[in-house]
């Protein structure tokens, strides 16, 4: 069964600095999709970035980028030039392919709480 592990329950970063959040996963599939979601204190879940396993190029969205290491089954999130608004819980998620892709279920890690210090 697929699992997602986030080994850092909490992280802290100074404003304007860079921080990397770790995520590892376990799967026997060769084609899959990975996501990072952000949950600020408002509790709304916001998609940050997504990565297709068949793409070697790491995904980038403005200040957010990933380091996708397929062989190591690692999917870390790098936040550059951290801002106070980046403070949130960050969840890594793995998409399960089921029924030919019909269901699009996600398996989430337990999250990393990021604090941004002014």
């Amino acid at each position, binding site marked *: 069964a697929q699992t997602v592990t986030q080994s850092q329950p909490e992280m802290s970063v100074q404003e304007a600095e860079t921080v990397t959040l770790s995520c590892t996963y376990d799967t026997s599939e060769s084609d899959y*999709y990975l*996501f990072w979601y952000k949950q600020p204190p*408002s*509790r*709304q*879940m*916001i*998609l940050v970035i*997504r*990565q*297709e396993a068949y793409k070697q190029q790491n995904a980038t969205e403005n200040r957010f980028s990933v380091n996708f290491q397929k062989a190591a089954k690692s999917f870390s999130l790098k936040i550059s030039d951290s801002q106070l608004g980046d403070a949130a819980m960050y*969840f890594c998620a793995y*998409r399960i*392919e089921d*029924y*030919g*892709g*019909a*269901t*699009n*279920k*996600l*398996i*989430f*890690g*337990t*999250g990393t709480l990021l604090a941004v210090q002014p």
Partner: protein
Amino acid sequence: SQTIHQWPATLVQPVGSPLSLECTVEGTSNPNLYWYRQAAGRGLQLLFYSVGIGQISSEVPQNLSASRPQDRQFILSSKKLLLSDSGFYLCAWSGRGKGNQPQHFGDGTRLSIL
């Protein structure tokens, strides 16, 4: 554009009372729909998902049930709430088929059982 509505935002219920949380999606048709529960300080646990009207799959045995009476409506219910049902409940939708389609979440319902 697509939007997802979930209500109520907050609910306080006594043990043993019934529950009904509603979720609706606008701007898309035939979405996949999901109910998650998030316990305090924990990750998201998938409770139910649905690929069509009347089609419900349960991920974990529990005191809750789900129904999908219309294409874009997803309801989470209980006949008798337990203390352990307290938590933050999130509804989500996604497109269907292969690809990097993400799930889009509602604003959630904070449920407290007294």
